C-alpha cells in the first residue's frame, strides 16, 4: 500500500490529512466523531453548537434526494438545523474527543444569535479544547432569520460576528459561507476584516428537490406541507468550485486559505478542490450515503495522485488551477477543434447524431446503410457535444482549424 505524507497546515493548525467531517448530521456526537477519527479522517467539524436559548426542534422526515436515471443521490436535500444536543453535552463531547484524540483536529462550529452569544460560544468551545472555530454563517434552514444564511449574505453582520468571536477566543477561525448569494467576495472580505483567518465554502444551496405529483407538495412532506432547504452532494460540486475560484482570484482575498466543501466523495473530487485552492476538505453527503469508510479511497487515491504528480507535500498542489481559470472574454477564440470519431470504438447507436442535430449544429451525418456517423466539417462549429454524449468515448477532440484572419497557429493550441 502506498505511503505518502498527506499532512497539511491550515490556519496554523497541523492536519494529518486534509479530510474532515463537515458540520452536519455526520458529526453530531462523541461516538460518531470517534469512529470517524478511527477510520482515518484528519479532522472533525463538530455539528454546529448554538446558544442555550435557541431550542432545536426538528421535522420528520427531513431528507430528500434527486435521482437521475438509475443514479440516486445526484443531489441531497436536508432540513436539519444545528446540533440538537444540549450545550453541556456538546461541550462535554468536545472535551472528550480532544482528550482521546489529541493528534486529530477538532473544529467547533458555532452559531450565535447576537454578538454576545457568538462571543460566549467562542469562549466555551475554546475552553472545551477545540483547535479551531468555524462560524456558521450559512445554514439555509434555520427557523430564525437572525441566524444562518441570512447572516452570511450581509457583510456587516459577518464582520460584526467575526469580531465578537475574536473577542471570545484567540483560536484560528474560519467563516462558513453560503452559496445563496451572487458574489461571495464582499462577505468573505468582511469576515477577514472582522478577524477570520480563512473561509469554508460552500454550505448548502436553497432548494426544492422534488414535488409529489399527486399531493402537489414538495418533498419531504411534513404534515401536508414542505419547505425550501439546503441542497448538497455531487450536484453542487461545480457551484462550490466556482465560488472558491472567484474568491481566490480576487485581489482583496489574495492567498485566501480555504476549507473546501461541496459534493466531495472521491479522491478526484478532493484533488479538484485542492487545485482551486482548498487546503482542507469537508464532507457530509458522501458519508451520509456511504459511511465514513469513503475516506480510505480518498486518502489512498490522493497519495497515488501525489506520486504521479511527483510532489511530496500536498501544499504544493494547492491552487495550481487558479491561474488557468480566467474570464471567458480572455479565452482564445481563434480556432475550432472538430471531433475525431474512432469508428473502431463506435457501437453505432447514433446518439451523437441526435444530439448534434437537436442540440448542436446538424454537423454529424448518419450513414443509414452502414449505421455510421461522420462529421461534416463545413457545418461543425467544434462544440464537441457529440463527444460528451458518446457512451463509449469514441469521439475525441481532433483536427484544429484556425478561423480566417486569426493569428493563432494550430500547433500552438493546447487542448
Amino acid at each position: 500500500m502506498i505511503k505518502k505524507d498527506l499532512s497539511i497546515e491550515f490556519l496554523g493548525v497541523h492536519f494529518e490529512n486534509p479530510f474532515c467531517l463537515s458540520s452536519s448530521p455526520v458529526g453530531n456526537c462523541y461516538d460518531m466523531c470517534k469512529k470517524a477519527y478511527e477510520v482515518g479522517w484528519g479532522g472533525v467539524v463538530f455539528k454546529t453548537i448554538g446558544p442555550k436559548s435557541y431550542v432545536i426542534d426538528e421535522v420528520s422526515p427531513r431528507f430528500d434526494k434527486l435521482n437521475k436515471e438509475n443514479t440516486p443521490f445526484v443531489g441531497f436535500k436536508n432540513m436539519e438545523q444545528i446540533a440538537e444536543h444540549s450545550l453541556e453535552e456538546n461541550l462535554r463531547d468536545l472535551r472528550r474527543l480532544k482528550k482521546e484524540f489529541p493528534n486529530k483536529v477538532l473544529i467547533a462550529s458555532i452559531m450565535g444569535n447576537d454578538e454576545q452569544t457568538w462571543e460566549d460560544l467562542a469562549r466555551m468551545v475554546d475552553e472545551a479544547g477545540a483547535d479551531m472555530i468555524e462560524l456558521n454563517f450559512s445554514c439555509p434552514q434555520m427557523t430564525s432569520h437572525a441566524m444562518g444564511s441570512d447572516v452570511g449574505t450581509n457583510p456587516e453582520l459577518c464582520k460584526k460576528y467575526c469580531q465578537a468571536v475574536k473577542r471570545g477566543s484567540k483560536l484560528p477561525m474560519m467563516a462558513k459561507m453560503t452559496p445563496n448569494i451572487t458574489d461571495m467576495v464582499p462577505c468573505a472580505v468582511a469576515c477577514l476584516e472582522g478577524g477570520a483567518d480563512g473561509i469554508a465554502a460552500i454550505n448548502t444551496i436553497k432548494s426544492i428537490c422534488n414535488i409529489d405529483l399527486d399531493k402537489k407538495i414538495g418533498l419531504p412532506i411534513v404534515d401536508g406541507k414542505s419547505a425550501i432547504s439546503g441542497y448538497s452532494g455531487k450536484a453542487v460540486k461545480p457551484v462550490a468550485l466556482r465560488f472558491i475560484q472567484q474568491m481566490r482570484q480576487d485581489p482583496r482575498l489574495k492567498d485566501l486559505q480555504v476549507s473546501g466543501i461541496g459534493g466531495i466523495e472521491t479522491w478526484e473530487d478532493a484533488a479538484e478542490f485542492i487545485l482551486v485552492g482548498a487546503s482542507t476538505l469537508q464532507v457530509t453527503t458522501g458519508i451520509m450515503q456511504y459511511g465514513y469508510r469513503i475516506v480510505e479511497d480518498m486518502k489512498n487515491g490522493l497519495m497515488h495522485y501525489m506520486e504521479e504528480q511527483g510532489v511530496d507535500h500536498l501544499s504544493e498542489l494547492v491552487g495550481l488551477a487558479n491561474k488557468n481559470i480566467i474570464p471567458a472574454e480572455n479565452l482564445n477564440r481563434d480556432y475550432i477543434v472538430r471531433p475525431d470519431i474512432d469508428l473502431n470504438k463506435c457501437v453505432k447507436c447514433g446518439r451523437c447524431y441526435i444530439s448534434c442535430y437537436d442540440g448542436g449544429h446538424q454537423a454529424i451525418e448518419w450513414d443509414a446503410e452502414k449505421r455510421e456517423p461522420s462529421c461534416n466539417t463545413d457545418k461543425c462549429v467544434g462544440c464537441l457535444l457529440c463527444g460528451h454524449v458518446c457512451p463509449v468515448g469514441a469521439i475525441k477532440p481532433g483536427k484544429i482549424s484556425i478561423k480566417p484572419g486569426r493569428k493563432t497557429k494550430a500547433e500552438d493550441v493546447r487542448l
Partner: protein
Amino acid sequence: MDSKYLKSLEPGFDPLTVCEEASRCLLCLDAPCSKACPAGTNPDKFIRSVRFRNFKGAAEIVRENNALGAICARVCPTEKYCQKGCSRSGIDRPIDIGRIQRYITDYEEAVKMEILKAPKDNGKSVGIVGSGPAALQAAVSLRLLGYKVEVYEKENVLGGMLRLIPEYRLPDRVVDHEIKRIEDLGVKFHKGVFVGKDKSLDDLKKAHDAVLLAPGYSYGKMLQLFEGHKNVVLAVDFLREVKAKKGGVKVPNNVLVVGGGDVAMDVNATMKLLGVEHVTDVVYEQFVEFKASKKELEGAQRLGVTIIDGYVPVSFDGKKAKFAHRVIKSELEIEADLVVLAVGQYPDVSGLGVELVKGEVNEGADYHTKDPKVFVCGDIAHSRFDKTVVGGVRTGKEVALYIDASLGGK
C-alpha cells in the same frame, strides 16, 4: 491451428463497463464476498475502490492479498466463493467479481505498478519443490517475510497446473507475467530439477533452513478398462500439449471424454474450440452432485458439448465404449476416434520422504510432516477448500506463516 482456442472466451471489462458493474455493488455492511474468498482477498474493498475511482488502490488490495491475483481473476470458480452470497442476488444477479478483478489486474499491468516489495533478507532460506499456484504463493509470502526463496521445478516450464488451464481461459502471458513479478521480488527458480531424482531431499535440507513440498497432482489417472489402447489419452497430458503448442494439435472429429470435473470441462471446451464436431462427455456423477464449476459446465454446454450424467464405463474395445447408468437400468454405447480420460489426478512424492493417505500428507497437524524441517502445501496438504488455484493460494499463504513460526521469524 484454430485461433478460437487462443482467444478469450469472455471479454474483459473496459473503464466504462467496470464502473457500471462496480456501481451495481450494494457496498454492503458485512460483505459476504469478503468472507468467502479462500485467498483472503476482500472484494468489497476493491470494488469500493473502483466505485470511487481509485483503481490503483484497488490493485493494491488485490495484489497484497494474492500473488496470483491476475490468474485467480480468470480461473476462480467465483460462483462457489465470493459471488455465492452476494447481496445483489436479492435484486437480480451477483456482481461479476472475477471480471472486476481481471480489469484491476490488467490495469495494474498496464500502468506498470510494482506493489509488492521484499524487505531486507532475514538471513534464512526456504527451498520449495514445485512451482504451481501454492508454491508460487508460498514463495511470495515467504519472500515478503524476508526469507531467501529457491524454487525447484521438475519441468522446463514454471507454473505447474497453470500450464494446462486452456489458453482461452488463462493466457500463458498472464502466467508469465505473474511469475516475472515473483522473480523480480527475488525468488530464484531452478527449472528441470526433479527433487527426488536429480537432487535429493537431503541436498535441499542442507541448502535451506526449511523445505516446502508442493508437488501437486500433476499426473492423470488411468482407468483399467482403457489401459493399453492407442487412442486413449489422459486429460492433463492432452491439455498440457495443446497449450504448449498454442492449439496446434491434430484431433479427430469424434471425441469421447470421460469425467465431470473442471479438467473434463476444459477438455470439452478445448475440443470444441479446436473445431471437433462431436464431443460427448460421459460423467459418473449426476448433475445434482456435479464437481465442475457451474460456469465451466455451462460454458461447455454452450459450445455444443453433449454431456451425459450418471454413467459408469463398463467396457471398451479400442473403439466402442459401453456405459451403464449407476441407478436406473440403462446402457449407453459410444463409438469414438479418441477417448480422453479426465477421472482425477495424483502426485508423485517418491524420494520426498512423505507418505500419502488419500492423496494427502497426514503426518502432522496442518502443513507439517514428521520431519520438522519439511512442510507441505498445495494439493497434497489437507485443506477445507477445493484443490483449485485459489485453494492452492490459500495453502501457500498459510504454510508461509507456519514456516515463519517454526524458523522463529526474524
